[in-house]
């Protein structure tokens, strides 16, 4: 029965920046174990929604998380330059001091060779990692403290399409193993069909909400993307 537990209720959520309505009238809820995708055009307020959910910005309406949840967030914006003198080990130790646990977590995100982890990955500058490796390290960061909920803002920005699939497969694998709930912002509807069991489409306000196959119809997408998106449903959905 715990599987049906509602862990987040959002009612009439609104966010204003200098009298500019960035989000208004959002209502949705999330159950434990859900993978909720948030889609919408650029500037639709997707990242703002995350910040409101995390309590980082002022908002109106109600955001109610179940009590005692550990929430982990991976933002879209990182300033990780090639010349940033910060090793992967140092970065991860900001969250978890225990090296064994760090190595274990890196293994579970698909960097399997322990020798490679200890002698190369951990000692490298974080900016020297490839896009895919960096993404795995960020996922490792996010699950290091065994969170109940993961918030991912465009987890595949800057990754090639092949790598993108792998990252989502990895997220799905971890979710199945650890049973956390995932909220993710994605621009790729294929990913949404394939991995999410629930979707909300927003463009400042709620355009659709429900199961991806049921609600992402041409009308909703036209409303969401202003009719220009010829793309709606991909052939290989299940």
């Amino acid at each position, binding site marked *: 029965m715990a599987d049906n537990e509602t862990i987040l209720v959002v009612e009439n959520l609104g966010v204003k920046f200098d009298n500019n309505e960035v989000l208004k009238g959002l209502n949705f809820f999330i159950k434990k174990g859900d993978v909720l995708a948030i889609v919408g055009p650029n500037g639709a307020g997707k990242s703002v929604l995350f*910040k409101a959910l*995390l309590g*980082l910005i002022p908002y109106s309406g109600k955001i109610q998380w179940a009590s005692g949840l550990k*929430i982990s*967030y*991976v*933002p879209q*914006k*990182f*300033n*990780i330059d090639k*010349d*940033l*003198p*910060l*090793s992967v*080990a*140092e*970065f991860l130790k*900001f*969250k978890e001091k225990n090296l064994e646990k760090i190595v274990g977590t890196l293994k579970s995100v698909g960097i399997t060779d322990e020798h490679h982890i200890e002698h190369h990955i951990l*000692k*490298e*500058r*974080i900016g020297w990692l490839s896009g895919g490796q960096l993404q795995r390290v960020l996922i490792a960061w996010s699950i290091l403290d065994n969170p109940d909920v993961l918030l991912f803002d465009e987890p595949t920005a800057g990754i090639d399409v092949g790598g993108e699939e792998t990252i989502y497969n990895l997220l799905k694998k971890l979710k199945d193993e650890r049973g956390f709930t995932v909220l993710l912002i994605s621009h790729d509807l294929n990913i949404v069909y394939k991995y999410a069991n629930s979707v909300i489409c927003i463009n400042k306000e709620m355009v659709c909400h429900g199961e991806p196959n049921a609600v992402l119809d041409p009308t909703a997408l036209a409303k969401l993307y202003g009719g220009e998106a010829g793309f709606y449903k991909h052939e290989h959905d299940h």
Partner: protein
Amino acid sequence: MAEKPVSTNTNMITNPLYLQLLVGVLTGLGAGYLGSFMILKRMSLVGDVISHVALPGIALALIFKINPFLGAFAALFLAVIGIWFLERKTEIPSETLVGIFFALSLALGILITPEPELLEALFGDITKIGPTDVLITIALTAIIFFTMFRIYRGLTLSVVSKQLAQSMGINVSKISFLFLFLIAMVVALGLKVTGVFLMGALVIVPAAAAKNVSVSLASFTRLAALFGGVSALGGILFASHFNLHPGPIIVLTSGVIFLLTLLFKK
């Protein structure tokens, strides 16, 4: 080895060279260490720019006959609050505005600083330090390292991603302010050592050198502090031996270290 007149006094407390070395090295350590985080935060020029603000502070202190250090520190503190507000308001570094404001305060400072003290204020003169300066330096360096020990994690995370840091409950704005406050402290300390014009260099050059040869944050920040300390040590000894002005020699020493590290650049 020939014995020089200055080294005949081996009393740690009264030998002026020892005191200069103590003040110089502590300031160099603090400046280098803070400089490494300034480079991380891409605010390398802030030290340069705000040090200029110290001049009108020194001038006013001289005119009203209070300790110039206090005047400099008060002026720097105001400057830091100004930068902090600009940072919060705009999210982007307001370089132009800051640049203009600080150039103007330098001009004003040059105008109102009494002539005899002007050269010393601009280029520092560590040979004129007294016991009070030593105590102030020890206390402020201790505060700098203690505070940094508390905030370096949040500071670094906020560089990697401000949102990430905030989502972990780190008060990015408060840390940013504390850090600027520490910069004001170290710049004020440096006014005796290298003066208004060159303090920016003592903050940035050792840290830039350390960055050349570091992969990790630990080695970067520690080497930056070390290079700052060594620059001051080498510079003061060299200047004392050849009877030169120590400020510029200290900065040139850090420049030599920077050039050497280029050979081992990572």
